[in-house]
């Protein structure tokens, strides 16, 4: 890039241009002055739009560069005024907001170009030069005949009385005006001369035509030789200097200065004769050389033009990159030093170009990454593979972190030598947050459905607990009564024993003992005591199991796979749903006793089985059967839940796993149960299948991969499938 920029300095413009810059910030003006210091044009800087207009009123310039955001007048408005008053002036807007609508509108309404802040110095220099050059070589469209010149009081006298012949000519070649000296020179009266075509004045009409053509091409004609015809018919040799005043690309008039060339001409004529002879011989000898030279020149011109085109496209590309705000786009040297910086980089990372250029890119990484030499490794990898993509944490200037997506591309010159890296960084923090939110919502949905299902089962679960609580409490009461009875018996027995110890007669006490023993049915009581304790224990265990299953269920999975016994998982689910099934269905179990444990999320699978069991119970209208089985089939542990319920109509089968699909009454189901079952089984990389016959029943088959989700994911690829 540097070499290209230097090359343009060789190309000098035809004349010195004037460029006016208006910006309300003095530091911007200073900075621009510094950047454009070496450039081959005059620079005028104004710190306000009004000052710029003041200057322009007195001094025409070739280009006005205006900052868009100025307090008293927007740059685009200033340029509008410039356009109205001096249409030939190149109008450039300088803006930190290339996307803003006023600027975008400006580009279609008379603003020639846009420079975005912060600008790139090379690009800025190139742009300005390119536009000045473009204008110099611009071929203006020829317009209709211009109106006669209006008299300009301040200079009218000067022009009219000047000692040099002056005239102005319209686009059609007719004289619009001529001063006294011009009329005297050619011997015409003003009345005769104005309106005459110069073709009639030139001795050779071809010189008149050539002059007009060159003027129409926008050329400033100097020392144009012509032989003019005086009014008296004599000829005079003249030199003409002329250029055209353009307004809105319209040829208004050509300003011509004509000088007498006669005296010079006669000496010249002699010299020329001698010279011509010499030249003729030289020209003949050098013709071949000249031909070759011309060829070379043409080629070089073409190359120059091609380079210009390329430079322009590079410049536009650079401006485009610089204007990108949503991506940090910057270049690194081969050793990771930052060498360019766009506005998106500043926005995303927080550093300005001045702060960051020349510093190592490793500063964008976290301390952990830096300590692990990640920045260096990524560049090495990009160097080896050409291009790498990466997501990870990046650090902003203020130390905050953001989740970034980074593409690093190695840049090589045509010979293959590494010249640096292009790095594009996108801030994905928002997207990552959205992804996390989505995952959290999904997890909340699963958990919510589970809690809701348990809520709906809670009455049944309460009943399951209530029954044992009822008989345990009653049995404890009974035991209390038994204890009272036994204490009575023990009291009499103690009395009898002490009577005998004291040598007394225990007979009476023993009779009392006998009577009480019969009264309290002591034999039955002692025997029943064992049963009472046994029943209480059984009831307590039932409650314990239900609570355990419930806790197993409402527990939120930590998202970790655990070796899971599907038989136990199914039993837990059955215990929670038992009250929904036991009054309607005979439950038959056919479990494979040695079913291997599978890596799974046990609570989640329990939720699946719970949903299937509740569905089975609800499918049975009066009384039926539910068959549960577990098996190993192929690479899957398979759980089947079959009911002899009403079955599912074929048209509903395809929608069964869709969320909120339900045929149940409001309040009975949410329509989420089977959707959740599907999602959970999917998360295990398992399969859930359904077969149903209306009037006969439904069977759900759940297949969970024996190797767990990861192995299943790997084997899904046909090439890696095991035999």
């Amino acid at each position: 890039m540097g070499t290209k920029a230097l090359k343009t300095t060789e190309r000098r413009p035809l004349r010195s241009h004037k460029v006016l810059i208006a910006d309300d910030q003095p530091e911007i003006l200073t900075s621009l002055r510094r950047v454009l210091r070496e450039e081959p044009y005059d620079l005028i800087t104004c710190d306000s739009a009004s000052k710029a207009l003041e200057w322009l009123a007195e001094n025409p310039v070739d280009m006005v560069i205006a900052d868009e955001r100025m307090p008293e007048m927007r740059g685009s408005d200033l340029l509008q005024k410039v356009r109205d008053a001096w249409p030939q002036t190149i109008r450039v807007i300088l803006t930190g907001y290339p996307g803003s609508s006023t600027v975008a509108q400006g580009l279609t309404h008379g603003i020639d170009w846009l420079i975005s802040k912060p600008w790139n110095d090379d690009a800025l220099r190139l742009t300005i030069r390119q536009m000045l050059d473009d204008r110099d070589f611009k071929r203006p469209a020829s317009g209709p005949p211009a109106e006669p010149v209006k008299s300009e009081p301040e200079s009218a006298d000067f022009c009219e009385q000047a000692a040099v012949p002056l005239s102005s000519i319209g686009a059609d070649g007719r004289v619009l005006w001529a001063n006294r000296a011009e009329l005297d020179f050619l011997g015409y009266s003003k009345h005769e001369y104005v309106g005459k075509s110069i073709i009639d004045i030139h001795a050779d009409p071809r010189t008149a035509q050539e002059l007009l053509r060159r003027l129409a091409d926008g050329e400033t004609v100097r020392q144009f030789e012509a032989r003019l015809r005086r009014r008296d018919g004599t000829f005079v040799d003249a030199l003409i200097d002329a250029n055209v005043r353009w307004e809105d690309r319209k040829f208004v008039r050509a300003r011509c200065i004509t000088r007498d060339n006669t005296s010079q001409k006669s000496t010249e004529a002699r010299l020329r004769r001698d010279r011509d002879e010499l030249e003729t011989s030289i020209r003949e000898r050098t013709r071949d050389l000249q031909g070759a030279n011309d060829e070379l020149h043409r080629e070089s011109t073409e190359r120059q033009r091609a380079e210009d085109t390329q430079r322009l496209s590079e410049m536009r590309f650079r401006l485009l990159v610089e204007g990108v705000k949503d991506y940090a786009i910057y270049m690194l040297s081969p050793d990771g030093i930052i060498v360019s910086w766009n506005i998106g980089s500043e926005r995303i990372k927080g550093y300005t170009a001045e702060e960051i250029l020349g510093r190592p890119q490793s500063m964008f990484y976290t301390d952990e990454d830096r300590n692990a030499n990640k920045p260096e490794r990524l560049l090495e990898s990009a160097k080896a593979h050409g291009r790498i993509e990466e997501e990870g944490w990046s650090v902003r200037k203020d130390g905050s972190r953001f989740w970034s997506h980074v593409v690093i591309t190695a840049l090589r010159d045509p010979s293959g030598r590494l010249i640096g890296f292009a790095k594009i960084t996108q801030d994905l923090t928002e997207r990552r947050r959205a992804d996390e939110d989505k995952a959290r919502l999904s997890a909340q949905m699963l958990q919510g459905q589970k809690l809701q299902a348990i809520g709906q089962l809670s009455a049944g679960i309460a009943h399951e607990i209530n029954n044992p609580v009822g008989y345990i409490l009653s049995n404890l009461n009974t035991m209390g009564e038994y204890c009272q009875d036994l204490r009575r018996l023990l009291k009499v027995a103690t009395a009898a024993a002490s009577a005998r110890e004291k040598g007394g007669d225990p007979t009476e006490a023993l009779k009392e003992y006998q009577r009480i023993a019969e009264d309290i049915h002591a034999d039955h009581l002692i025997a029943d005591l064992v049963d009472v304790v046994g029943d209480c224990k059984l009831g307590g265990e039932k409650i314990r199991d239900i609570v355990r299953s419930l806790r197993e269920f409402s527990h939120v999975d930590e998202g970790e796979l655990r070796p899971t016994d599907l038989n136990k998982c199914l039993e837990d689910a059955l215990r929670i749903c038992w009250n929904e099934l036991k009054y309607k269905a005979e439950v038959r179990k056919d479990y494979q006793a040695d079913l291997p444990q599978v890596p799974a999320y046990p609570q989640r699978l329990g939720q699946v089985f719970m949903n299937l069991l509740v569905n089975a119970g609800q499918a049975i209208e009066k009384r039926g059967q539910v068959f549960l089985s577990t098996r190993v089939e192929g690479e899957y542990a398979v759980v089947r839940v079959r009911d002899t319920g009403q079955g599912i109509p074929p048209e509903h089968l395809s929608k069964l796993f869709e969320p909120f699909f339900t045929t149940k009454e409001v309040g009975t189901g949410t329509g989420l149960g089977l959707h959740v079952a599907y999602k959970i089984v999917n998360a295990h990389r398992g399969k859930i299948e359904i077969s149903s016959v209306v009037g006969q029943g439904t069977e759900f088959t759940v297949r969970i991969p024996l190797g767990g989700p990861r192995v299943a994911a790997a084997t899904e690829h046909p090439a890696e499938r095991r035999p």
Partner: protein
Amino acid sequence: MIAAQKSEASVLNLYHWHTVLVVDDDREVLAALRRVLDREPYDVVTTDRPGLALDWMSRKNISLAISDQLMPEMDGDRFLEEVWKHSPTTGRLLLTGHPERLNAIPASRRNLLKVMLKPWEDGDLRKTIRTLLREREGSQG
């Protein structure tokens, strides 16, 4: 017979010998109920099969039928309605853990029921049963 029970009995003395039928699908519940009522002044028969109970009704004079509400074979209120059809003079007591579900029972059937909640309190249960048996004795003259 213990003192406490005697005092209750003195308040609610029964003049006839009664048979009380208890139906519940839970065998542990039945055992507990039997223990509560074992030494009360009436016979207690228990079964977990409502159908079997109805069969007994046709062979034996039952003064009071006590039933659980939720049973696989037949709901308690339905069973007690059958009891009423077989023997209109038999008292009926529904024992339920889900009083809120009773709203689903048709009012005509519900109004004829005496309802007690599970878990029961032994003393309350004994007293309620005696009261119902006394009502039977009164209605029978």
